[in-house]
């Protein structure tokens, strides 16, 4: 008789919820402010070991100006090289800030880092709710994903995997031992839509609930998760001299994030009315279709492969297991069968 092996993982005692990493992605800004207000009013009553939740407005200067960033994109400043590099007098604001955040929530890669970092984002693309993570084997992230899918049936919930090494991972959520970005769209930058704010509030609530259940000893059944792994980006066609875009996302692709794109499907419509088609040979899943902030990063859309990942049952470690673990910083990969 087969007995499901339960993977035991360390408690998540310290959690961070960050908003305003991009100062014009407003759901996270207002949600963090609201959660800070709520936290001031009530005291956390926990059963068992307390979990501390820190709320952070990551880029206060950009938030004040309601711009994505002041000098440079904060959410590209968390690679090991940037976090540990020297800072000159003329260093961009966001590089100074990423080192501050690393001191507060990290240091990245160390045993002292925050257990779980959740970073809140919005996109102009029609992506519903996405969790974006660097791993397709982080059982904590994948279990939270499954839980959100069950608890939030009214909104599409998906998991996007960027296959980038820990050292090269560049976003804020990579500072914690576990983490992901919660990306919700569509919402224009600089605008708050009630439905998007509410979805984000619920998503964060359910995530924190799951972490509390996990910490309290609940075991979570294994299962299968659908994961989208980023393969490549496609840029807009551009004028050779001016670099201005010469086409927009085709009306038949616009808003169709995660609808399979086949070779020869329309991709762009030029400003003179011509259709340009997808020239790839492999059907792939498009996402971040027409994300405003990506025009300057030369990305019109990103493309992913879909796969199914088997997730084991998990449960929090016992105190003895936890102590033994604190001898060395063990990665999830080592606990896999």
């Amino acid at each position, binding site marked *: 008789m087969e007995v499901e092996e339960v993977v035991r993982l360390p408690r998540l005692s310290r959690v961070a919820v960050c908003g305003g990493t991009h100062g014009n992605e407003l759901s996270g800004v*207002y949600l963090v402010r*609201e959660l800070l207000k709520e936290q001031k009013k009530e005291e956390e009553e926990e059963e068992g070991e307390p979990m501390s939740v820190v709320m952070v407005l990551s880029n206060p200067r950009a938030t004040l100006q309601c711009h994505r960033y002041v000098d440079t994109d904060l959410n590209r400043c968390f690679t090991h090289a940037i976090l540990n590099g020297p800072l000159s007098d003329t260093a961009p604001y966001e590089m100074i800030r990423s080192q501050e955040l690393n001191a507060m929530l990290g240091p990245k890669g160390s045993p002292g880092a925050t257990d779980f970092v959740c970073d809140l984002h919005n996109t*102009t693309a029609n992506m519903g709710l996405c969790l974006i993570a660097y791993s397709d084997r982080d059982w904590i992230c994948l279990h939270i994903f499954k839980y959100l899918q069950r608890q939030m049936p009214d909104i599409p919930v998906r998991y996007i995997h960027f296959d980038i090494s820990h050292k090269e991972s560049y976003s804020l959520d990579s500072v914690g031992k576990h983490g992901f970005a919660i990306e919700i769209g569509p919402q224009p930058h600089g*605008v708050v839509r*009630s439905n998007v*704010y509410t979805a984000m509030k619920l998503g964060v609530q359910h995530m924190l609930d799951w972490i509390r259940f996990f910490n309290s000893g609940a075991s979570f059944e294994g299962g299968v998760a659908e994961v989208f792994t980023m393969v490549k980006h496609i840029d807009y066609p551009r004028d050779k001299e001016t670099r*201005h875009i010469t086409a927009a996302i*085709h009306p038949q692709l616009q808003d169709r994030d995660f609808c399979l794109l086949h070779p020869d499907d329309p991709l762009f419509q030029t400003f003179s009315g011509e259709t340009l088609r997808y020239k790839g040979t492999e059907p792939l899943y498009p996402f971040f279709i027409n994300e*405003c902030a990506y025009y300057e990063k030369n990305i019109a859309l990103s493309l992913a492969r879909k796969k199914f990942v088997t997730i084991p049952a998990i449960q929090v470690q016992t105190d003895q297991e936890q102590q033994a673990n604190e001898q060395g910083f063990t990665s999830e990969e080592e606990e896999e069968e």
Partner: protein
Amino acid sequence: MDRVSLSPLSSVAICGGTHGNELSGVYIVREMQKQKVGKAGSVSVTTVLTNPLAVDACRRYIETDLNRCFTSALLSAPITDSTPFELRRAQELNALLGPKGSQEAVDLVCDIHNTTANMGLCLIFYSLDWITMHIFKYIQSKMTSVPVRAIQLDTPVSEAYSLESVGKHGFSIEVGPQPNGLVRADIYNTVKEAVDLTLEWLQEFNSGTTFEGGEVEAYNLVKSIDYPRDPTTNEITAAIHPELQDNDFKLLQSGDPIFQSFSGETVKHEGEELYPFFVNECAYYEKKIAFHLAQKNTLIVPSISAKKG
């Protein structure tokens, strides 16, 4: 009402990028310049990227909103070293397309804008003008893909602050919803169709066609409502309610929800039944406008044709 004879129109200016992050107009103007569109029949066509610095930065404006710089007072104010970029630019545009109020001014100015509000296609006018009302009627009759509406602001010309008030006739083409800083193909196509129909109408009119009069429905701005704000920080404390969001031009009645606070409470509309528009326009947060409210009025427009000879 008798048929009215009006002078033919000989010049039109198509303007884009007045707000540098409202991109339909930017790309329409660039495409027209690429295609070297200089004439539409007997009508000379000028295309202008009105705020090129803001377009380069992909921002609404650099120092101040260009589309508030065209009052007669601001256009005649002396320029000093500390004059904001947009005030200088407004005076340059006034020299190019105006001067406002003079015989030399361009016959028709069309200024292209986008909004994050779900407004479909709107033509925004300062005052009753039979030329522009007929262009509106024509566009409305020919465009079936999106709702087409007229908004009237009812401001005297000298106080009119936006670019299109520089021409002898003028209107803004406002299309949404589109986030700032990006181009949607469907919105671009809507704007292009509206511009093409405008040029088509001008040619028809000049060639002697009579345009039948009739009734035109227009929305007249009555007042604006701000977001609820924190008295100390001035930050907004609520978002547009989900039942109002995207429901521009749907009659708002007393008791209807208008805001949902970040802690979940509903704020309701109290007072007159009015039509909301510019609901949740991104650029209006700083202008303290959550949405505008309008009355709907029916106007009678006479038949018109161009004077001969």
